[in-house]
């Protein structure tokens, strides 16, 4: 019984996530992005075209800058806020956290138009901050929540011991809480980075210059062009997953232990 479920689950997962991914990678190496064909047909043509006929280099750079800044900003704010929520006796902390989580759960499609007016009024269209600030705002609640969960698991005595040993609250946070919660912080950082890297709707709305787009927005707009860009879409998509794959490989152990800490037996 249990085995049957396992196989069923694995099949669905392969059909709907692994298989499409694989198809995509294969297509990116074929002329015109045809999903099937002989092995000898493999080519780098699509990759070359992505950079030669489009500003994909600057798009990648922009994506990287936006995602990194969002991550740094969100983690800095979220870590301090989560620490306060988890370890200091803040009045109404629960309600505050629940409210901000609630806000971040409203449909992005509903807020994108009024937010566009704000961004335009600030003159932030096509700027880095025009994406970083809304991303940070929307990533913050979940980041605070996850980090607070990690911080909460740290024994109170650890913070108290640091205080008795002469630390100010800030010193206790920087010298004890933060290093000890290291895996949790990196996990959260990676989640925020991925959110910013993958976000499509805001990126599409708040940018118009081709160089100011992020990767998902750029890929989405390939399809709006006159000729069939399937091969280039595949190449760009594959390229866009590279940084995530690389990060995953580099931080593999940390991510696994961070993500599965407390979730898996033994």
């Amino acid at each position: 019984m249990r085995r049957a479920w396992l196989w069923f689950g694995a099949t669905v997962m392969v059909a709907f996530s692994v298989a499409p991914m694989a198809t995509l990678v294969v297509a990116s190496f074929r002329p015109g992005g045809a999903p099937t064909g002989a092995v000898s047909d493999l080519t780098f043509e699509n990759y070359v075209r992505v950079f030669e006929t489009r500003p994909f280099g600057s798009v990648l750079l922009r994506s990287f800058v936006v995602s990194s800044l969002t991550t740094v900003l969100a983690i800095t704010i979220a870590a301090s806020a989560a620490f306060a929520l988890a370890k200091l006796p803040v009045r109404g902390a629960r309600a505050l956290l629940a409210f901000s989580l609630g806000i971040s759960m409203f449909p992005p499609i509903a807020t994108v138009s009024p937010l566009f007016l704000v961004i335009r009024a600030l003159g932030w269209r096509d700027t880095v901050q025009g994406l970083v600030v809304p991303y940070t705002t929307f990533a913050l609640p979940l980041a605070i929540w996850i980090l607070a969960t990690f911080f909460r698991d740290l024994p109170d005595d650890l913070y108290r011991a640091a205080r008795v040993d002469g630390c100010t609250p800030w010193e206790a946070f920087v010298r004890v809480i933060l290093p000890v919660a290291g895996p949790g912080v990196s996990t959260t950082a990676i989640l925020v980075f991925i959110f910013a890297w993958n976000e499509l709707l805001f990126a599409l709305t708040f940018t118009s210059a081709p160089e100011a787009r992020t990767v998902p927005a750029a890929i989405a707009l390939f399809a709006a062009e006159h000729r069939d860009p399937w091969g280039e879409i595949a190449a760009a998509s594959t390229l866009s997953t590279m940084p995530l794959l690389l990060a995953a490989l580099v931080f593999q152990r940390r991510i696994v232990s961070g993500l599965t800490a407390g979730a898996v037996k033994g």
Partner: protein
Amino acid sequence: MTSSPAIQLDGVHKSYGGGGAVLRGIDLEIDEGELVTIVGPSGCGKSTLLSLIAGFERPTRGHVRLHGEIVDDKSPRERRLAMVFQSYALYPHLDVFENIAFPLRIAKLPAAEVKARVEETAARLGLSALQRRRPAQLSGGQRQRVALARALVRRPSICLFDEPLSNLDAKLRVQMRAEIAKLHQELGSTFVYVTHDQSEAMTLSDRIVVLDAGAIAQAGPPMEIYERPLSTFVASFLGSPGMNLVAPEALGLEGTSVSVTVGVRPEDLRVTREPSPGSLPARVYVVEPVGSETWVTCERASCRLVGRAEARFDARSGDTVHLRFEANRLHRFDRATGARTGEPLESLAPAGD
């Protein structure tokens, strides 16, 4: 040394929003160099009391003074105390050396002095060989020593202990207990030691403070409290097994005009198989050998009494045994209030059963 007590609590109340009071008017002075244990069952407020002294919380009413100065609004950092935690609270990302050095590094002492003092403290606590280990690689007893070293490396004038031994196994607990007593003798600091374990309180303290529901039930030297408990609460809390508290009839005594509860410590109640002059018969409820002696719980006049028998005492549940005690080892308490009402019951003559 100043003339003010090291720690002074003036009418300290503590309550949390909505709930009742956790501490109700604590007045306590702890002298320079004393080792005071604060003891009581869970929920009696003893940990809150320590939090107030350490500065994690502030009193709702009343004041905390350290060396004469009111410190209610001072942070733990400004109070310059040391503390040993029940969970040890070692910094898991630092090795033993850095754990011990942490308070000195925060105080920005020169590296050479940090090294000298850490090594001296580590040596004193037998940690010299472990300085490069991480806390996760240490046994419970070793962690406890590191926690002690970290507290003592600053040569604090006051050191607080929050049930420091309760995570150790019985063997190690007895051993560390002796070491803490020894450290106190050598350092001459003021130690405030919170525990729920009456045997730690008995063996360690210059003075015991027994807390009951947020108020001081009794304070004094261990043997004084043991021999002259001021209430049934204190009487039953100290000593293991605790004092027997029964109606006078159960001990074959005539009741006086007031309603009293009579107390007798198990070690003062001899249990024998054979009757002797003045002994009282009783039925065995359960027999518990502890090696060096045997504790026998008996039933008599629908009261249960624990008495002491010799090591290989052979009796089964339901057997009849005989109890003997000396009248001057009895304690008398008011049945309604639980307060001690007079000197041991010499006036009540044992009656035949």
